[in-house]
């Protein structure tokens, strides 16, 4: 006797969170049944394996039908086909869009194209995540990317509105979209020690300070008057407040600029201007003056003062060169490699503590204000504020 057909439909759609997770993880029905059996559910409930299989099948079918709706979460909320309590709806969406750290590290910064999708089996083998799950996660990235890519307005909000994700997850997706758009290199061996969270923080900084959207948002703030930035540490907390003094120059305020992406693309004018920072290393006097100011400020405060003093010029040159090259797309992609190579690794080899790095970067940024010959204070702060936050996030083992 064989079961030809076996369905269970509730007025309120029954959803088993454990089975949902198994489905998301890309397990086949039979694998899922095996895993469930191993969890000891049979003993707990006194059920038989065929009951478990039937239950798993039912859930899988439900999920498959839901998947179409999950691709557009606002549809899920307004559809009539499945009656699902709102908290459960949120759970379904949140978990569907959740991704695995090992996976995202593989894909972060890659072009979300068919080619990358074809390579997913390698990713799957490497990460131990099922191909099915990899595909779902990849497709999620791509879908979110496609939807928000052309949208104006703040990236995170756009994602949240169109995919109804939690703040945190929407932030993560913003990072993914941002990285994919600028194709930042994250896969090189040097960068392996960095977690997705590190990159996500950096992305947040970059989005808040270096994109076109950052300009738009801050235009009113820029009108408020001259720089009042006291400490760069505040920057991270109030990104909108003071990054954007553009020394009399207004970025992208013409109406047609609204057509452009606001949050996804870096502000090219800003990148262009960054060349002006070169004066800090090309002008010998300025460099020495800067060094002495920093050294004076830090003397006795950092444990690795001597190393700092010796490597100041190299480090400064490194940071300024990164800035100067950013106008080239390729160099934008290498931003993180460059930061690691030019700054983080030298510091690490000199055994700087996190605190040392922090103090150094703070002083390095602030003292430039005292350089009379240096005219690009606002540009400098916009650049260094973000760089500092990124380095601080990335400076760990």
């Amino acid at each position, binding site marked *: 006797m*064989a079961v030809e057909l076996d369905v269970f439909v509730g007025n309120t759609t029954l959803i088993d969170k454990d089975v949902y997770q198994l489905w998301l993880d890309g397990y086949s029905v039979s694998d899922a049944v095996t895993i469930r059996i191993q969890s000891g559910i049979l003993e707990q409930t006194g059920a038989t394996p065929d009951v478990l299989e039937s239950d798993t099948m039912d859930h899988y079918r439900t999920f498959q039908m839901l998947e179409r709706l999950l691709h557009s979460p606002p549809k899920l909320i307004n559809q009539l086909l499945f009656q699902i309590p709102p908290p459960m709806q949120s759970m379904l969406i949140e978990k569907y869009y959740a991704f695995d750290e090992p996976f995202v590290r593989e894909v972060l910064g890659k072009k979300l194209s068919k080619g990358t999708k074809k390579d997913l089996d390698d990713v799957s083998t490497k990460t131990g995540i099922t191909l099915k799950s990899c595909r779902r996660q990849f497709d999620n990235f791509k879908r979110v990317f496609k939807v928000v890519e052309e949208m104006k307005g703040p990236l995170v909000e756009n994602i949240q509105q169109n995919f109804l994700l939690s703040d945190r997850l929407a932030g993560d997706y913003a990072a993914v979209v941002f990285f994919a758009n600028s194709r930042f290199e994250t896969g090189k061996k040097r960068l392996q020690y960095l977690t997705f969270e590190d990159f996500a923080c950096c992305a947040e900084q970059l989005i808040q300070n270096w994109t076109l959207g950052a300009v738009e948002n801050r235009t009113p703030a820029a009108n408020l008057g001259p720089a009042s930035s006291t400490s760069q540490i505040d920057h991270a907390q109030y990104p909108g407040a003071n990054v954007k003094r553009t020394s009399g120059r207004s970025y992208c305020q013409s109406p047609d600029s609204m057509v452009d992406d606001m949050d996804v693309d870096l502000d090219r004018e800003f990148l262009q201007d960054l060349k002006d920072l070169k004066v800090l290393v090309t002008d010998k006097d300025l460099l020495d003056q800067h060094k002495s100011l920093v050294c004076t400020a830090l003397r006795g405060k950092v444990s690795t003062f001597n190393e700092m003093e010796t490597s100041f010029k190299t480090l400064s040159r490194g940071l300024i060169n990164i800035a100067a090259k950013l106008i080239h797309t390729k160099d934008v992609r290498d931003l993180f490699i460059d930061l690691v190579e030019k700054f983080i690794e030298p510091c690490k080899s000199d055994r700087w503590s996190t605190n040392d790095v922090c103090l150094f970067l703070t002083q390095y940024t602030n003292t430039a204000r005292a350089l009379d010959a240096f005219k690009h204070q606002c540009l400098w702060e916009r650049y260094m504020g973000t760089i500092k936050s990124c380095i601080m996030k990335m400076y760990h083992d």
Partner: protein
Amino acid sequence: MPGKLKVRIVAGRHLPVMDRASDLTDAFVEVKFGNTTFKTDVFPKSLNPQWNSDWFKFEVDDEDLQDEPLQITVLDHDTYSANDAIGKVYIDIDPLLSNEAAVVLSGWFPIYDTIRGIRGEINVMVKVDLFHDLNRFRQSSCGVKFFCTASIPKCYKAVTIHGFVEELVVNEDPEYQWIDRIRTPRASNEARQRLISLMSGELQRKIGLKVLEMGGNAVVGYLQCFDLEGESGLVVRAIGTACTLDKLSNTATSLLPPCSSPSKDLKEVPFSEDPNPVTHSSGPSTPLKNQTYSFSPSKSYSRQSSSSDTDLSLTPKTGMGSGSGGKEGGPLKALYRQQTQSAFEHREFPFFTLTTFPPGFLVHVGGVVSARSVKLLDRIHNPDEPETRDAWWAEIRQEIKSHGKALGCHAVVGYSESTSICEEVCILSASGTAAVLNPKMLQDCSMEGCSEHRLSRQPSFFSTGSEKGEFDFFLQCQDSASILGLDDSSSLGCSFCHIPYDELNMPFPAHLTYCYVCRKQKVPDVLFATVEPPLEAAVTGKGCLIQARLCRQKKKTQGEANATAISNLLPFMEYELHTQLMNKLKLRGMNALFGLRIQITVGENMLMGLASATGLYLTALPSPGGIQIAGKTPSDSSYEQHISNMQKKINDMIIKNREIYEINPPEILEELLGSPIPESRQRSRLFRSHSESSDDVSELDLSHGKKDAFVLEIDDADAVEDIHSLLTDAPTPSGFYSCNTEIMPGINNWTSDLQMFTSVRVFHLNNVTSLTSQGLNKAFSDLCENLLKTLYFKLRSMVPCCLCHVNFNVALPEDELIQVAVTAVAITYDKDQAQYITKVCTDKTLLRASAENEDQLQFTLELCMETQSTQSAQLLSPSKAAGITESGSLQPVTPAAQRATSVDYSSFADRCSSWIEFIKQKAQTIRRGSIKTIASLDKASPLAEAHTRHRSPTSCINSTVTVVEMTPLSFIPGAKITKYLGIINMFFIRETTSLREEGGVSGFLHAFIAEVFAMVRAHVAALGGNAVLSYIMKQCVFMENPNKNQAQCLINVSGDTVIFDRDTDVESAPAQPQTSGSQTGNGSGDVIT
């Protein structure tokens, strides 16, 4: 020109992409009613069009309004080729025709296509302006309310229950018309859907006319069915109970005790003041099943009836029951009986489709009566004269009526009809419960009415024979009863168990004892009924779902030979099913079955029988004996060993079951009163062979004391199988109870967490012919057991919970396929309180003072407490003690207390509120603890707010979807029903030609059932409702052809649309002054919350 229908098309959303090039759709809408069609403008290039059309106005007859559905078609405009249909919405506007129900239909409806399923949604508004037509020759019956609920609906009061109404209409099935060969499957499906919608509209209108003729204004227990007779046509038939209902003016009156069971609000005046007048003492009863198998090839049908009004010239003869009754009782009693009987006989069919009644309505229950008949279908030549089908049913009803009489009963309650069709053979079945009703209640359920009628006794006595045969005679019955000075045993909750027939002239062999409650009247040893357990019934412990399953092979034959073969098999099947039920009942230590439903399904080469019922232990009935196993005579020692092993297993099982179901009959009673077990010890026995007589086995009585034993002889393989199957029925997992009735006796404290579901399975039997009939039986039984197990597993997160109204439907779609569909609702209950209530229950059985039912008792307990101390919060824990200590004073106190309450109720409520608060908190924590969330159900919207959308408090997401509960029950635990918005009766067809792509048969059906639910919910929400009560999936016909990658499914569902209100402010409720009767009910209900 009595009606103007107005329709406005607002918007669409989530439309499918119809233009591949642009990934968009140019949608417009056609609105069709009758022969008139309107169109909206094309809304170009959008998947979310905003038409915002003007009001389209249709001026139509109200006859059409009732019959026709409003048809809305969404199309994609195409400049060069024909416009493509996206899908359709059929809207039944009937709910708008009753002035009390919905005023406007407005909301999002899924756009449905029979091939592609749901394809987006459309927002529609519909209004009807009705000009009332006083023409008495009119053909319409607007305003007659229909209820699927098989009890008096919550916000109404029954003024008169007129009785049985039936109607059927027939037509050709479009699927079998010649044109079907040339049209697309889509067109064919749509033609069918439309036709059925038209036919059910017409049917409803015709029934409505009958009701108006009878002087009623509503139909309750409305049950409509389709018979897809294939080549020979399509029959839509319906039965119901005509009533005159009065809306309870004060909504507070309709306040349902949140945990209550149906129709509690109809509770009568306290019986202490107005003792139930009717009881005529006489004879015993046991479950009886009268069956008749008539086989009449359609060619030879009698031409008795010529219209669908089955007015057969059935001379009302004095039934056997009444004749014999006269002998025994005094002349007065005989008179009374005859009056009652004769009055009922003026009704063509004294049938009631109701299954729940106001307390005191059911005077006696005789037993189950059923009739089946096998017919050969023939093409219906003239759809306007459905005489054949009418005659068939009339025959069966007549038979039921006479069976009822044989049981000494003048009425049949819980009546239902069904068919099973395979090719050209059709089994018609009808069943019900023979009963003696309290005629007073039939006439009037309100107290004032009673006194009035008492005065006008004489005149109405003479109106007994009035042409309509209504229950005008009731008064003298009541009075004759009181003259007889009959006892008020009904108030003890045992009256309905007393046999209605004559003890000396029993219609069947039964074993009678004196009632274990009142000790005055005779009761049978077991009682079977198709109705719900009466509210006043004294029940010990809890109930459980009991099923008997049977499978019989038959040869594949054609025509008459086939029909004869089936008719020959039927009696044996009924017998077997009955035996199985009895065995299983005994095994659970129970003595009564309620909600019994026996379904016999005919297939090509098999007959399936499935009997489901809820087993109970009625306190009034004797404790069931055990089951004894007797071996065949030539026995060796190992065989003996085997037998005794089995015996032991069975005995253990019985003991275990008694524990599980908390069946602890109050033994004390027996000792106190002495048990007058009647002299004639007739054993109800089951014989496998016919060799032994009952006396021989009496010494085998071992473990079950003085109780009679039920003997199973194993002398052949059959019996071994039987015993085996008895023992292999898996017990329900702990935390679960199940029943097929609406309420589970012994569980009163439902939480508001409920889940209605439908589960369908199709099994393939390999080589049916090679299987023995035992093998088949086992396969079928396993199938059902497995299905139940899956349900328990799936619903494990709701534990502790009870599956209520478990409704199995078996079909044999093809040669080796068995299809089983189950619909039920799982309701979570509060475990701690369950124990509390059980305690009270047991106390009650000890006290048995004047408690009509548990609620009332608790109420009085409460009051007693109040008189002494106000420490009501403590009540929970010391309840048992309280109950016992109070027992002495309880009896005298009760009536006084009740009177007191009706005067000053609010003060009681005040004092009680702290306790209520406590309970509420408790309930809340439990609700929170359970996994299923009902957060969005917080408050139901009355009509005005119905269209304001639900917003979930927890998430940031704003949904525009109203949460709609669906339940097969006639109530929602923890909520009060504020308004009935009309009946939902929908028929859908879904077909696919890409079965594999849609996930195979399971994927296809899963999606379809979900779609059906969605469409039902959308209609309910559009009417402004938030729940469907008495929901039933009456038909689920599934056909597949995997080779062609095709499948088709038809589903018919119905239910009552309502607005309910989750009653959070319980405290305020009891403060409202009401009539004393309902007040008592409410008060007690609130206390239990």
